């Protein structure tokens, strides 16, 4: 999946957005977005919509609004292609230019993570890659990232959570790492609300079902109840991976003539439109009836995918690799080609399908899980296929890397479907040239009132009886109560390297049995603080995660984050977001550790009511020898030389 965009890479200048109205001004229209003289129903008739056909029917109405594209965005597409897009191309642009994939509202703010980042010698891959990679010894590096799967986890809690874990694990795998641990920061509505029982049990079972079956120890997370998450729970999932420094992989589809291989599960109709509809749209009454197709995870296939990929890396059999997540093939094909500046030629009918009746645009948009895209030198193809076969993983050559244009411009992505040319686009136009918005921002009007209502004005327990009652009430609060019911549904032992896990402040994983080298991790966030003061609330989340890592005895070295917010089209939410990013960037500068990656999740709201702004911050630290870790409890020592209290 796409991560934060690379802040140093050139992005087209942001559309200047006037403060009013909230909508950014459109670009120069080249062709009219809608051409009259076509019956309104003639959206699409029959057969495959090919590139030549698109050239010959410029006036055909296209459902770009339904796909979430605005008039000016549609016009941009026509401008880029110099014709109307085919149905497949339209699907691809609508996905890649969605908020979820393009970071169009967050890009301008996220740049600070790069600009304010303190220098680090350890960073092998940073923002813009699938996940940031930090070196922790001469031979070893670790990679970690946290990502959200909020909306699917509301619609189908078990599968939403399961595929959330599956997705982040593939991100880590794509960097060349063996995934070695997961964490799961969770937010639910009120603990006593009937729907919380549905969502909580499903999400926890899904996180456990997938992670346990994959053999990844769960070493921590969060469990928070607050009514603001009632119609929009948060499922964030973090994965940690370990790799030898020289096994680092990248996604660039380099080397014209190389073979493009699709690996893993067959492609089905699951999650089609998921990125645009599920991940970006607001929940409303209609969504329950709309019953969108959600993805179903198959952790068994993912386990085989992991083992097969690691064997391919170790055999130095791949040139480039990219996981398929949201936006499926569309994202993987365009990102790998754009990263190398090459072109690509893909025969779409070679993609193994679960349902033979799928249309090209459905194949391109499908979010079927447990798939990876490989770029392989032709003489290594046999070895790749053999390894995949050994692990029982499907692998199919579906295309070829092609050369950049003779004049040095990047190559084009050409996709055919049974000899019909259905896509002919510059891959970079989908990945890097998407719209960028400087959305209007305004401090929420109620903030002053909220801040004026200070905690000091609350009644204080004045006598022992009241004090007792307060203590009992606090103990009974779901947010403070024991979390064992959740955490014991997760395997913390598998892989045999878990040194600390829940209920410790931070998880600690040994990554080198020989030397005892290990890493510590903590994820933290506090939506209530962030609601009151997003700038300082985010700093506090960072500070908490930093402290939790430090108290294990580890030295914090890197930060990841998942920014869960309401609609970016709401100036109040956008302000919260901007403040949170500024807070995190400033906090990291003060603490001297870089943000190495993360994820933005917008549109977390029910109707017009946004969730509390919820930046979740993960900090990673390094321990030269995990034997030196500091556990939370007192350690009785032989000879009475016990721990001292200070």
């Amino acid at each position, binding site marked *: 999946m796409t991560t934060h965009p690379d802040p140093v890479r050139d992005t087209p200048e942001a559309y200047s957005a006037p403060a009013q109205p909230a909508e950014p001004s459109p670009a120069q229209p080249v062709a009219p977005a809608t051409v009259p003289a076509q019956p309104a129903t003639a959206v699409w008739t029959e057969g495959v919509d090919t590139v030549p056909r698109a050239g010959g029917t410029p006036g055909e109405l296209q459902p770009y609004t339904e796909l979430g594209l605005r008039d000016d965005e549609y016009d941009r597409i026509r401008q880029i292609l110099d014709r109307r897009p085919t149905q497949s191309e339209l699907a691809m642009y609508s996905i890649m230019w969605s908020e979820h994939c393009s970071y169009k509202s967050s890009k301008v703010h996220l740049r600070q993570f790069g600009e304010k980042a303190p220098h680090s010698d350890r960073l092998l891959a940073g923002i813009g890659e699938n996940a940031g990679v930090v070196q922790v010894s001469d031979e070893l590096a670790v990679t970690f990232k946290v990502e959200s799967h909020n909306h699917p986890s509301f619609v189908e809690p078990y599968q939403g959570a399961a595929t959330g874990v599956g997705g982040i694990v593939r991100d880590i795998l794509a960097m060349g790492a063996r995934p070695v641990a997961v964490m799961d920061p969770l937010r639910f509505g009120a603990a006593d609300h009937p729907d919380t029982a549905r969502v909580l049990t499903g999400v926890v079972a899904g996180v456990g079902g997938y992670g346990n079956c994959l053999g990844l120890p769960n070493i921590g997370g969060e469990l928070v109840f607050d009514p603001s998450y009632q119609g929009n729970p948060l499922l964030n999932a973090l994965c940690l991976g370990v790799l030898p420094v020289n096994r680092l992989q990248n996604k660039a589809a380099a080397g014209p003539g190389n073979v493009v291989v699709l690996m893993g599960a067959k492609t089905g109709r699951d999650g089609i439109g998921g990125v645009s509809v599920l991940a970006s749209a607001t929940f409303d009454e209609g969504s329950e009836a709309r019953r969108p197709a959600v993805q179903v995870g198959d952790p*068994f296939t993912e386990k085989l995918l992991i083992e097969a990929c690691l064997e391919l890396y170790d055999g130095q059999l791949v040139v480039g690799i990219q996981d398929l997540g949201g936006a499926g093939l569309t994202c993987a094909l365009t990102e790998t080609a754009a990263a190398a500046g090459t072109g690509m030629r893909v025969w779409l009918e070679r993609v193994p399908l679960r349902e033979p009746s799928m249309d090209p645009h459905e194949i391109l948009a499908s979010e079927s899980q447990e798939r990876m895209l490989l770029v392989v030198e032709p003489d290594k193809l046999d070895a790749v296929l053999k390894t995949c076969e050994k692990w029982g993983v499907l692998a199919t050559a579906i295309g070829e890397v092609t050369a950049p244009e003779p004049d040095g411009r990047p190559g084009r992505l050409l996709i055919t479907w049974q000899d019909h040319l259905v896509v002919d686009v510059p891959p970079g136009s989908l990945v890097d040239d998407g719209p960028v918005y400087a959305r209007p921002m305004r401090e929420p009007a109620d903030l002053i009132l909220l801040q004026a209502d200070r905690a000091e004005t609350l009644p204080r327990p004045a006598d022992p009886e009241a004090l007792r009652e307060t203590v009992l009430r606090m103990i009974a609060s779901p947010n403070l109560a024991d979390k064992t019911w959740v955490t014991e*549904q997760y*395997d913390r032992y598998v*892989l045999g390297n878990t*040194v600390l896990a829940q209920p410790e402040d931070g998880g600690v994983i040994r990554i080198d*049995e020989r030397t005892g080298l290990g890493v510590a991790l903590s994820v933290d966030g506090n939506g209530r603080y962030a609601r009151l003061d997003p700038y300082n609330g985010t700093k506090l989340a960072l500070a908490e995660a930093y402290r939790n890592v430090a108290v294990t005895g580890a030295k914090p070295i890197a930060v990841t984050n998942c920014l869960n917010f309401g609609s970016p089209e709401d100036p109040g939410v956008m302000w919260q977001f901007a403040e949170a990013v500024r807070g995190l960037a400033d906090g990291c500068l003060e603490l001297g550790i870089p943000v190495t990656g993360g994820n933005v999740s917008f549109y977390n709201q029910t109707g017009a009511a946004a969730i509390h702004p919820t930046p979740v911050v993960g900090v990673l630290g390094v321990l030269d020898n995990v034997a030196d870790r500091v556990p939370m409890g007192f350690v009785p020592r032989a000879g009475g030389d016990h721990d001292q209290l200070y």
Partner: protein
Amino acid sequence: MTARVGVVTFPGSLDDGDAARAVRIAGAEPVRLWHGDPELHGVDAVVLPGGFSYGDYLRCGAIARFAPVMETIVDAARGGLPVLGICNGFQILCEAHLLPGALTRNQHLHFRNRDQVLRIESAGTAWTNAFQPGQEVLIPVKNGEGCYVADTATLDQLEAEGRVVARYVGGNPNGSQRDIAAITNAAGNVVGIMPHPEHAVEALTGPSLDGLGFFTSVLKHLVGTPA
């Protein structure tokens, strides 16, 4: 000559590396065996590790039972080869009819991972001779389908023949009948256990070192058996 203990990897095995580590810490040589290869490569004993073989779809262990390596293991086990099935391995042994009964969904319907006290009921097996009968050990349990069931006649027979190898103490984590955590076959060479001894072999990563006893037991057993 150190003993060679095979650890089978099925597609979906998860604790295979941990079982191999435990074998090594116990002082034997772990030998990795592959589900698709019927050869046992001359190993002296076999561990079927925990995990979700074939995704544990359908029923846990149901598909793994048909792996080529299992045919050889079933024959060899009948001939006396020591075999330890841990968690998923236990499920596979039941599905393969090397052990009686079945492992079903935990009664509370949740996966449960906790540190569990067990009482060793039988120290007469190839895998428990390092323990004292009645000894209590602390070993992690982690499973979703660990509830042991069998008909009354089978349970009575297991009890009568001293084939209940370990029982849960201080709370039954999954609803197993008669608190059964581990059983053995009549000959005592095949043992199935739900909790994970391989996760209690290092002070840093386990709740105790009690799990080592299972692996040192088989070494002791092998020394006593002529090759």
